[in-house]
């Protein structure tokens, strides 16, 4: 059962519309911020991102057509493949900006870590959703934890802590809906607070400590680490209520805020479209998350619900962290804004994720 025509009316077109709208808003913002005055045309990043959109839509459709249960059942295979790819990245991947993340496929490059989330969500949905396992016992938690640990450690070794960390919400979200005892959460938070001095002293690299310290007082180091944080606030704040207008931003376009097309695309949007634009985009993200959680609520089985929750948890975490960072309220980490930031692999993987969510909702009545 690849595609049943009767399923088409059950596609959540509103959710799909929200996803596409956010993608296009991201694309136009990249268009504005990379505009090259000398050549009078948008920068190469815009075109590369534009080409990624149809690829992403194709991936989305692919993920809609194949029944998610089929995928979930095959997930151990996918999981094995993922681990192999991540090992390959460490072995033969090419290096950029001090870490090894990409595989050269001849026709283009691929960032396997971007697809790790999909695979992990499928595996964990299967682990907790299929059969009667819940996340009530420590043993159950440990099983999922081991599944998480595989891709996490391989990505961490690249090193790409940012991407590795985004795997954790998938696990956290799924064990939460799978019945994680809340006292354990409270207990874990307490332990975390008590252990944080130890982690600070022994567990963190100097540059990571630097980032935290700079976050707490960006003016301590206004030239380097604090610079982005300060400029992000200036960029966002100078947008005001209604913004400077499309293509009229100065902070991103003139490179006062670096990575305006990438990590800080939302700040550029806030600068050009103002608080009104911020409300609009935040509303769209909220809508997309809301509709996605509907898919979880309506899912025919636990596997579907858990799959959606895993994906949404990751999406929510990254969106919220990135946007908090744009407001200067979180340390600057290389976390992109899903759907809007520049990055082909990320866009394709994210759209594929929404394909799975659409898939779950679409098949809520099928047996």
């Amino acid at each position: 059962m690849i595609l049943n025509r009767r399923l088409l009316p059950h596609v959540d077109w509103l959710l799909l519309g929200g996803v596409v709208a956010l993608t296009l808003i991201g694309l136009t913002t990249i268009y504005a911020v990379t505009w090259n005055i000398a050549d009078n045309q948008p920068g190469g990043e815009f075109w590369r991102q534009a080409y990624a959109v149809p690829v992403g839509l194709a991936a989305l459709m692919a993920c809609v057509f194949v029944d998610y249960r089929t995928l979930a059942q095959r997930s151990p295979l996918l999981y094995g493949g993922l681990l192999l790819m991540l090992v390959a990245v460490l072995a033969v991947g090419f290096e950029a900006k001090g870490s090894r993340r990409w595989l050269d496929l001849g026709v283009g490059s691929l960032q396997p870590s971007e697809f790790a989330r999909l695979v992990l969500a499928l595996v964990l949905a299967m682990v907790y959703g299929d059969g009667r396992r819940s996340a009530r016992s420590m043993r159950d938690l440990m099983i999922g934890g081991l599944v998480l640990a595989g891709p996490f450690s391989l990505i961490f070794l690249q090193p790409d802590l940012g991407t590795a960390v985004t795997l954790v919400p998938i696990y956290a979200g799924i064990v939460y809906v799978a019945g994680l005892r809340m006292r354990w959460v409270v207990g874990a938070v307490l332990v975390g607070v008590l252990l944080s001095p130890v982690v600070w002293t022994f567990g963190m690299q100097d540059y990571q400590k630097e980032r935290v310290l700079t976050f707490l007082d960006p003016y301590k180091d206004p030239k380097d680490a604090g610079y982005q944080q300060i400029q992000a606030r200036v960029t966002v704040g100078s947008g005001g209520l209604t913004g400077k207008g499309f293509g009229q931003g100065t902070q991103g376009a003139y490179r006062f805020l670096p990575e305006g097309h990438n990590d800080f695309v939302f700040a550029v949007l806030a600068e050009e479209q103002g608080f009104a634009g911020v409300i609009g985009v935040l509303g769209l993200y909220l809508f997309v998350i809301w509709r996605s959680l509907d898919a979880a609520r309506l899912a025919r089985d636990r596997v579907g619900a858990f799959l959606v929750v895993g994906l949404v948890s990751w999406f929510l975490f990254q969106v919220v962290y990135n946007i908090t960072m744009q407001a200067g309220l979180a340390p600057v980490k290389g976390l992109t804004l899903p759907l809007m930031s520049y990055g082909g692999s990320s866009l394709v993987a994210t759209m594929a994720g929404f394909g799975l969510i659409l898939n779950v909702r679409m098949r809520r009545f099928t047996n």
Partner: protein
Amino acid sequence: MLSPGAYEDRQNLQTRLAGLRAGVVVVFVFLVVAFWVLQVLQYAEHRDRAERNHTRSIPLLAPRGVLFDRNGEVLVSSRRSFRIAIIREQTTDVQASIRQLAEVTHTSEDELKAIVDRHRGEAPFRPIAVIEHATDAQIAAVIARKLELPEVVVEQVPMRTYPESALAAHLFGYVGEVRQAQLKLPRFAGLPPGAVIGQAGLEQVYNELLMGTDGNRFVTVDSRGREIEELQRQDPLAGQRVRLTIDADMQRALEAAFQADGFAGAAAFVDPRTGEVLALTSLPSYDPNDFSVGISSATWAALNEDPLRPLGNRLIQGLYSPGSTFKIVMAIAALEEGVITPDTEVSCKGSGVFYGRRFKCWNTAGHGPMTLRHALEQSCNVFFYTLGERMSIDTINKWATRLGLVGKTGIDLPQEKASLVPSEEWKLRERGERWYPGETISVSIGQGAVSVTPLAMAMMMATVANGGTLLTPHLVMATDQGDGWEPVAPPAPRSTFLIPPGHLAAVREGLWMAVNEPRGTATTRGRIPGRDVAGKTGTAQVISNEGLAAAKASGKYTRALNDHGWFVFLAPRDNPEIAGVVLTEHTEHGYLSAPIAKHVLETYFAKKEGRPLPVYKSSIPPTSNVVGTAAAVVPDRGGVR
């Protein structure tokens, strides 16, 4: 088939999903509030910050106003100069840029480095001028390497230029960068560091007029400081053009004569009808162009350490004993006070006893019976001692004040010193002692506690020339803001009294005889046939006669101990149109000043009548160069401009 407990499971899942949703809403509300604070509450602060980020204001320097002589000849102007600057922000390796720049411009790498180091604290987008007044070859070398050295730019700046170098240096003064301490003064409020202002002379006094207003270019730049577009341009407003009272030809004649004789000193030529200064000088002098290019520390040290103090303006800052020229004041005071008439006779026997002490005449053989005319002609001391005996010091002070020898003349030049003729009150205040009548006798021949600036003497002569109006000397006739010349009202006279024609005629007659009669002290030296030059010589003692004799005896005598020579004058005698003073330092004799005055007066009359200007021939034999000031006159600084 639902397994047992599936319903319960389902309920559990729904509860947890609802909890998740609640959490999502909370987080999004938090984000909205955060952006509200940033974008709405703190908007203004961030907007200004972003504004400062990407707009730059680049100054367009206004050229200083041109100075003209009274006939419209350009005396001081501004020309375009080019400087080479480095913008540190646009290079990743400043040291390499400096090395390459030094190489292509044939300059010292260390010097360029030192300049860049001095400006290290400034914003990196601000160009640092490393080569001022670049040569054509240097500019070409830099422009040819535009691609290799994008961080090196050629900027055009106005530069003050004095075409005739040291001519009238003390009149014009010089310009220089505003000093740190000056920036705190209200008159320089708002000037940027490095702004060029007048630091001496007219440049200083009329700085506001001459400076103009700098313009600005407001440009958009990117984060590397590269200019993207010009948003706004405000052209600079050049300083006002100023027409001086100075006559360039007289000024040249005056300085040429001093140079030819090799004298240091000061001189001023004034129109006694208006107070306009036609020429003035103080020598030795300096080249103001040295200051325009940013004076080197070596040149600055040399000027400051020179024992002849070329930076000082002797005309208004040098205080000298007036010597016999003070007899003119005595003559007018005595006539006005009714102590004598023009025909009162006093007999000179070579000396006389006053208040129990014997005072000598310079002519120890005695001049015989003298009237005022002859006493002025031959500068008879005994005659004027007698006048001093008949008047109190306060009376003399009163008339000296009316003739301009007390206080400042009020000329529009900076740092003028006050001339002094004593009074009883003055001595009590300054020395804590009462005045002894015997001192009045010394004062009556211009010795004792009398010290005057050469310009005060010139104004005294101008007052005698115009019959009693003490004018304020001034240097500016008109200004032009770009819409035509606007005359500048002359300053008000300091005082006016009327010298009766009979008295005036007697004094002028005596002064005329001094220049034109065979026995006159300045005869043949200052006389111009047909011009009726009237004048008076004088010697200003540097030390007392006894001191000089002692120095000669002990071998400590140097020329610096020699008296200064005065010559004060007016012409023509009956209807004077020019008056003034020439003081030559350490020349011993006032008559050595007279030829300089004569040359300038001849230039004045020749120019007025359209005849060829005279050429000065020094009467001082080169071997007996009295002071040897040739070395002190600022040497030719060829190559600077």
